[in-house]
């Protein structure tokens, strides 16, 4: 049984992900297309929300991924701090822009949905506000990566920022809850069947979530490969300049 840590070797990582990437991309595209088409064309309107209920197929998965991307970055940063595998630090770096885009999608679709439903594009509701704060954290994280030239220093600093940022993001979540009562409905998905959205909406939604997860994994693999190559290139160029 090969150890999981084998994939911390950049070469091995690139080899394996190269094999996986075509399959992953096709699968991601397929599930996304099926889920979105199913959701868009073949689901009934909600009796209160009308056709705007179709926005759920974009809003919920992107919001989920926005949070999960940060969690993945947190885990990757911890792995980097503890075991010092470069691939891990670079994977965290690769995931950040994807997470930021997911946050923007969640915010944008939420605003477009909120306009007809709540009568406003934006409200300082706890969920909305914490997402905006999450977006600021993504921006700071990416800016710090971009600002530092030395790769290892950048990896260390951003890893610590990610840890501290996670704590403060969580604190902000509760602080914001305390600060304002919300308009936002509760979770759309839960294990408790009673509270779940109706089945007609549920199954295409599952497809879309699976599609977003697969898309995220494929993108992170691809972008991590890119980061590994870019890092190797910088190392080679530096060696060239020296001798």
């Amino acid at each position, binding site marked *: 049984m090969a150890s999981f840590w084998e994939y911390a070797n950049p070469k091995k990582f690139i080899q394996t992900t190269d094999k996986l990437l075509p399959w992953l991309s096709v699968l991601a595209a397929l599930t996304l297309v099926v889920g979105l088409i199913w959701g868009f064309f073949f689901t009934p309107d909600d009796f209160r929300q009308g056709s705007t209920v179709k926005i759920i197929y974009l809003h919920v998965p992107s919001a989920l991924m926005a949070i999960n991307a940060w969690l993945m970055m947190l885990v990757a940063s911890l792995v980097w701090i503890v075991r010092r595998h470069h691939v891990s630090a670079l994977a965290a770096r690769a995931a950040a822009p994807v997470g930021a885009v997911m946050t923007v999608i969640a915010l944008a679709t939420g605003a477009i949905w909120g306009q007809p439903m709540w009568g406003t594009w934006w409200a300082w509701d706890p969920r909305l506000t914490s997402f905006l*704060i999450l977006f*600021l*954290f993504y*921006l*700071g994280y990416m*800016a*710090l990566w971009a*600002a*530092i030239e030395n790769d290892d*220093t950048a990896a*260390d*600093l951003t890893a*610590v*920022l990610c*840890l*501290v*940022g996670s704590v*403060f*993001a969580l*604190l*902000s979540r*509760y*602080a*914001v809850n*305390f*600060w304002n009562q919300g308009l936002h409905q509760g979770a759309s998905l839960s294990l408790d069947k009673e509270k779940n959205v109706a089945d007609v909406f549920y199954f295409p939604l599952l497809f879309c979530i699976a599609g977003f997860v697969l898309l995220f994994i494929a993108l992170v693999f691809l972008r991590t490969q890119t980061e590994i190559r870019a890092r190797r290139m910088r190392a080679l160029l530096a060696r060239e300049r020296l001798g």
Partner: protein
Amino acid sequence: MKALLLRDIRLAVRAGGGFGLGLAFFLIVVVLVPFGVGPDSGLLARIAPGILWLGALLSCLLSLDRIFALDWEDGSLDLLATAPLPMEALVSIKSLAHWLTTGVPLVLASPLFALLLSLPSQGYAPLLMSLALGTPALSVIGTFGAALTVGLKRGGLLLSLLVLPLYVPTLIFGAEVARRGAMGLDFTVPLAMLAGITFGAIALLPFASAAVLRVNLR
């Protein structure tokens, strides 16, 4: 340790840094707000707690990059790092010095500025309490941000981008204490939360700042 603290304070006072500049900035923010929102004293009284907190936060932010910059430039930071003093203690002292030179003056000046914004009289005590309790957290969190960006040439803008999101919980609870106090409501819950954040930050963040500083001095 004491020597380092005294040295930092003396430097801040002499270099025209924290002391004067932060206060002047705070004053300007407070003066500009009525120009922006109009001179209606009822409205000003309503938003005064928030404005005062924001002003304090921004003028605190303004002086953050000075925490390490001077020592970094003349190399004394490397000397301090090799001294027997643990890095965590060094970082804590730096935050303390920053708080004494910017936080304390802000707290002391805030009643005067509150007067300008016609804060209701029952609001003064909670405002002072919340600022006195909250500004240490601002300094400690700011030290972390300053340690992150210490080696960068133009770190100022990046520093604000990194630090401001971290200030959110402190600002929310601090301003909430001041706001509830000004309206004559019970403010013990946010005050307790604010104290929790401040003491938590003081206890834990120096470790993160020290780790980051070590990386930057590598």
